[in-house]
């Protein structure tokens, strides 16, 4: 039996197990929206297509599944580009369907026409323009396969209107045949052995884990190997949650894991940065040596031999030349290293490691992450710590970008993978709220909190109504300092306090705004109000926006000025 392109679209989604689409209709994609009533798929209508892309992204990061969004041609498609680039930078599996004008009109500057395949070529893993309905099922099959395998990423499928109106026999390919796509998943045995030899003899090892650990679900293997080798662990922003920052002690209290160094890099902890700068073996796992991590590249980990596992060969020796490259899946590589570590355990590992761990303990005590909450005025770090204290262990935290993001990374102690959703690579303001909605749609019963700034929340604040309409009870904690805080901090430190264009003295009343959207609006202006307000927010089943009036000139510290070695930290 012949099916139309629109029917084939839904049959394909069914085969791929898609439960939710985040989307916004328009002329070019109307046939698919018309067909939607015949299929039991959940559609979440957003208020801006950027929101749809970030929601699909948040859904994907929280679940590990492929996020899907559906938008129309032209402006609908271009509005997703920031969301696509965000997902691309952080290797998030996503398929973006865009409407397109009918094929005879392509290239004629038709109404709402844009070359979205051309526009998104540099920020997608791959993209397609489907010119014949006979290709549609194969292309969708390939798009999902590409999005989720190897190094995951966003794939865009552009659907001309006449293609989704045409009909053909529906055949969903059983297998994908792409001659040029063969990601190396199994690590090279010889390289694994070389890595093990080096790890075995290390005196001052440091594990440096990135988002790859979370993507490949290698967190258990990482913990096991680190504990076996008694090696301290630091992660990138994207790797937070890949190693348990806190564990419970005998009395049931939450304490820092003894091997946990905290995040490293520009706003990393003193001990993490010092450990990396003084280690003799740096073991990088699914991390890409981003400039926010390395600081001045020539001065990064100067005493270390470097091992690097990554499924993407282009990430290896791109920024920092490594001694032992291992192309492959992090989980498989760590499993094999664990096997070797089990077969030939290092004798007296506790004794060997004592001086190094003692040195790290001293660094931690000399310059701990700290702030002082005075009687007056709320410190933003205090809000984040309270959120950590009150939130369940499986709570999902999203952030916007800037100071709110860094304070969350520093003061929320992540213990589980896929519990921090943040725009690491692209640094997209406006990411947090829609990502939280995407995650909440996947996990309606979990607590999902967007830690936001008053600047960044206004970039996609319209999605509050999406949360309200779809009964997705996300909590937005705005650290309202009346500034574009991180930019202001840079102006303070490097631009002689010229606060040009960073003062937001004319912001909306967020409590009234929440009310207008049909959400709950709450406010805390004094330190003693923080906890009760959070308790109230967490106990309500509705979306909540909390306006925390925090100290306007609070900074994120430590901080490594751009271009400096990561040991050259500003500590105050």
């Amino acid at each position, binding site marked *: 039996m012949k099916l139309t392109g629109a029917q084939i679209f839904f049959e394909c989604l069914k085969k791929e197990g898609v439960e939710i689409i985040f989307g916004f209709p328009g002329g070019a994609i109307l046939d698919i929206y018309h067909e939607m009533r015949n299929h039991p798929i959940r559609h979440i209508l957003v208020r801006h297509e950027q929101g749809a892309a970030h929601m699909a992204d948040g859904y994907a990061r929280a679940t590990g599944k492929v996020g899907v969004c559906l938008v129309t041609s032209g402006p609908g498609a271009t509005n997703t580009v920031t969301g696509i680039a965000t997902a691309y930078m952080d290797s998030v599996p996503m398929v973006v369907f865009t409407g397109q004008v009918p094929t005879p009109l392509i290239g004629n500057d038709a109404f709402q026409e844009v070359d979205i395949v051309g526009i998104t*070529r540099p920020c997608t893993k791959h993209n397609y323009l489907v010119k014949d309905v006979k290709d549609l099922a194969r292309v969708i099959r390939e798009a999902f396969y590409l999005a989720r395998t190897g190094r995951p990423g966003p794939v865009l499928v552009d659907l001309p209107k006449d293609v989704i109106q045409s009909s053909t026999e529906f055949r969903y390919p059983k297998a994908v045949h792409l*001659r*040029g796509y063969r990601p190396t998943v199994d690590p090279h045995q010889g390289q694994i052995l070389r890595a093990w030899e080096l790890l075995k003899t290390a005196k001052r090892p440091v594990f440096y884990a990135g988002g790859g650990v979370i993507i490949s679900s290698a967190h258990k293997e990482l913990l096991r190997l680190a504990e076996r080798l008694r090696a301290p662990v630091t992660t990138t922003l994207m790797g937070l949650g890949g190693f348990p920052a806190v564990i419970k002690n005998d009395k049931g209290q939450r304490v820092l894991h003894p091997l946990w160094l905290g995040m490293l890099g520009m706003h990393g902890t003193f001990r993490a940065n010092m450990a990396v700068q003084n280690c003799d073996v740096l073991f990088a796992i699914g991390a890409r040596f981003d400039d926010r991590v390395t600081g001045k590249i020539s001065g990064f980990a100067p005493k270390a031999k470097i091992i690097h596992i990554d499924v993407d060969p282009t990430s290896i*020796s791109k920024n920092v030349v490594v001694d032992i490259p291992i192309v492959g899946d992090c989980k498989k590589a760590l499993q094999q290293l664990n096997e070797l570590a089990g077969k030939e355990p290092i004798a007296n590992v506790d004794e060997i490691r004592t001086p190094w761990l003692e040195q790290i303990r001293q660094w931690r005590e000399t310059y701990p992450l700290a702030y002082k909450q005075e009687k007056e005025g709320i410190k933003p770090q205090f809000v984040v710590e309270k959120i950590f204290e009150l939130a369940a262990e499986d709570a999902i935290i999203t952030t916007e970008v800037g100071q709110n993001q860094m304070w969350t990374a520093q003061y929320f102690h992540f213990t589980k993978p896929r519990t921090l959703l943040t725009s690491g690579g692209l640094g997209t303001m406006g990411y947090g709220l829609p990502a939280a909605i995407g995650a909440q749609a996947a996990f309606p019963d979990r607590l999902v909190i967007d830690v936001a700034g008053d600047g960044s929340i206004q970039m996609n604040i319209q999605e509050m109504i999406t949360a309200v309409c779809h009964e997705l009870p996300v909590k937005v904690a705005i650290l309202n300092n009346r500034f574009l805080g991180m930019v202001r901090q840079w102006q303070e430190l490097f631009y002689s306090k010229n606060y040009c264009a960073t003062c937001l003295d004319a912001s909306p009343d967020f409590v009234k705004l929440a009310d207008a959207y049909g959400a709950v609006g709450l406010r805390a202006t004094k330190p003693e109000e923080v906890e009760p307000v959070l308790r109230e927010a967490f106990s309500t089943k509705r979306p909540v926006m909390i306006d925390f009036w925090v100290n306007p000139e609070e900074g994120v510290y430590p901080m490594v000025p751009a271009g400096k070695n990561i040991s050259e930290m500003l500590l105050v």
Partner: protein
Amino acid sequence: MRHTIGVLVENQPGVLSRVAGLFSGRGFNIESLTVAETNEPGLSRITLVTMGDQHILEQIIKQLNKLINVIKVYDFRDTEFVEREMALIKVRAEQHTRAEVLRIVDIFRAKVVDVSPHFYTIEVTGDDGKIQAILELLGQIGVVEVARTGKAALARAKKH
């Protein structure tokens, strides 16, 4: 350093743009680029010449390999290979210079492919050095226009 790279790609719309975009997006320069179908249906071969140190070249090759439509990348750094370029050169050829032009054409095993009262158009094939040399000699007589194809390259077949 100048390097020649061969890229076997699927013959589909947008593939050349992906390859070229990879270079421009990362600030790598392409000195010359040729592309045409191969003997195998559906496949094209791109030959491109680029500049860069070992580190840049490593990145270029890895990034090319990462493209979904790229079947194979031939890195000619460590292999013997044959490369050729074709140039069409329109040169001024008046009564008193024609014999000299023809002598040069003969020496370079080039061909005159078009003749008019005042100009010859010459077809010449060879490596970079040869094309440069003939251009230099004809330049002294009066080169009017030049069209070069850019290099095509293949690894040498094994002798045994």
